[in-house]
């Protein structure tokens, strides 16, 4: 509670007419433990009745110094740290880091690894969007959505577990390719999933698309002019729902996305409902990309043949002297990355994810900066809330789809 309303001031003390016509503002601390902030975000709301007059987001509660830790790790040891940035888009973070380091090293990744990366990163997008849909709908009162989404997400997590041995912290990509080849039955499980999943999207849409309560809460809510969104650094489905078709997969293709056919869904209404529609379409497009990746999955090596950057195969180590030496060098010293710097951008489920890496030629990164989509989006939060109702704040926040670990790093 704020100081503006003193708890000791009673109604008798203040004459009834003194309040009439004057505005009494109340400050409300929303979070850091509020369920709809999905993590530890604090928003200081200044309220005039039900209307939000000022919103000040405060972050940093989850700051773990990942960028500092990365400077103290070998290049390969950084990969598990990138998982922990965004618990819903681990593989996107793995991918962005690996692509950046591969650019610095100048190694080419074999096609099987490229295709698998695309397959699993799109599965990550579905995973992230399912959690977003479930929690967003839960916040707005559609509780059953959460159960449906969690149930279907379980299948995605099982696939991740098959491939990497982990449900959340996958660390499946390596500099130069993948950690392991596909597990037995892995691709069949993905195939089965994408055969069933489109009908599940239809089910979700049946529940929400024309649901009057859902539409009342979302249509026309959280509109901010598109130029303001861009100037404030908002990215991802947020700007695509405002009519900007920018998607790093199309505009700055990475990891072989230019070989896949897919559309970038956009809307022009720029409200919470439009963002919901964009993400639903994105899940369909992800399925489309995944089925192409499955069909064209090449055979061959799953990791590059780059002796100075990639651990040699076990078989080679037992028979070749050089392989044994490289193995020893990589394990004891880590790989050396040529001095230089790179900024690699990919399209994470939340928007533009960028890794800016500076190498000084040693076996540890000199500086690793993560440009995370949630950080860029969340700083625009006041624009969405101010002037609206408290209830609309919840709807706007849900439509931004932020992860606080991704924000605070």
């Amino acid at each position, binding site marked *: 509670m704020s100081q503006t309303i003193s708890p000791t001031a009673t109604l008798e003390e203040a004459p009834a007419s003194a309040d009439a016509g004057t505005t009494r503002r109340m400050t409300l601390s929303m979070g850091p433990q509020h369920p709809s902030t999905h993590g530890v975000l604090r928003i200081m709301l200044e309220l005039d009745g039900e209307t939000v007059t000022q919103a000040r987001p405060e972050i940093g509660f989850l700051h773990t110094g990942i960028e*500092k830790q990365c400077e103290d790790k070998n290049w390969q040891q950084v990969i598990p740290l990138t998982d922990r940035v965004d618990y819903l888009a681990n593989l996107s973070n793995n991918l962005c880091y690996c692509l950046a380091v591969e650019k*610095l090293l100048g190694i080419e990744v074999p096609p099987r690894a490229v295709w698998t990366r695309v397959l699993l990163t799109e599965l990550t997008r579905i995973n992230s969007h399912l959690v977003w849909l479930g929690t967003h709908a839960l916040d707005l009162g559609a509780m059953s959505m959460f159960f449906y989404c969690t149930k279907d997400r379980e299948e995605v997590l099982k696939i991740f577990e098959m491939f990497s041995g982990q449900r959340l912290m996958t660390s499946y990509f390596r500099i130069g390719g993948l950690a392991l080849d596909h597990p037995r039955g892995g691709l069949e499980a993905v195939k089965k999933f994408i055969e069933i999943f489109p009908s599940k999207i239809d089910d979700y849409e049946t529940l929400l698309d024309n649901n009057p309560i859902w539409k009342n809460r979302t249509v026309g809510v959280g509109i901010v002019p598109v130029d303001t969104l861009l100037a404030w650094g908002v990215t991802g489905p947020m700007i695509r729902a405002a009519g900007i078709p920018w998607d790093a997969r199309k505009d700055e293709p990475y990891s072989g996305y230019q070989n896949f056919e897919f559309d970038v869904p956009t809307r022009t209404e720029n409200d919470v409902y439009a963002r919901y529609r964009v993400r639903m379409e994105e899940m369909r497009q992800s399925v489309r990309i995944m089925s192409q990746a499955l069909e064209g999955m090449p055979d061959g090596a799953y990791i590059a043949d780059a002796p100075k950057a990639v651990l040699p195969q076990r078989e080679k180590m037992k028979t070749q002297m050089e392989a044994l030496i490289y193995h020893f060098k990589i394990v004891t010293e880590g790989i050396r990355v040529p001095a*230089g710097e790179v900024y690699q951008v990919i399209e994470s489920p939340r928007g533009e994810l960028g890794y800016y890496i500076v190498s000084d030629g040693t076996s540890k990164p000199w500086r690793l900066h993560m440009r995370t989509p949630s950080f860029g989006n969340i700083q625009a939060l006041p624009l969405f809330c101010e002037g609206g109702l408290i209830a609309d704040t919840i709807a706007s926040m849900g439509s931004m789809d932020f992860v606080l670990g991704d924000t605070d790093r």
Partner: protein
Amino acid sequence: MSLISEQLQEDALVLGLTEKFPGALESASMQLEQTVFYIDPAQIVPVSEYLRDEHRFNRVSSVTAVDWYPQEPRFEVVYLLHSIPNNSRLRLKCRLTGTDAKILSVTGVWPGANWYEREVFDLFGITFEGHPDLRRIMMPDDWQGHPLRKDFPVHGHKYDYGQGN
């Protein structure tokens, strides 16, 4: 005259900048097919405005810094610019000394630089003059020191648990 790499001699950005702001462009190079400009820190705001208005760099993807301790000038402030209409990216860098680590804020050019500059201020101790709300963003308000500086330890800070006070 400034140091401009060969493939950028005819570049429209380089020509425009050298004509409009003589001396502002310290050097220009391509690194792994990405354009990098070193800019005189005193002119960062007019250069940013020019790039936004004339070359349609309508958003700043991120602002960050690199600490080259113990070299001097130790800090580099890095602006990662992005133009959606032209689908191009540009990296601006400004060198700052450790004794005078301050630069003008670009929040007036791109409001989205706001939190990124606060983050650099918090973690590197670089002051952005003219920033509307320059407070710590990640660390607690009463924190001592700036964690991403190279002379700040990774382990064994005084708040270390187990050490006691």
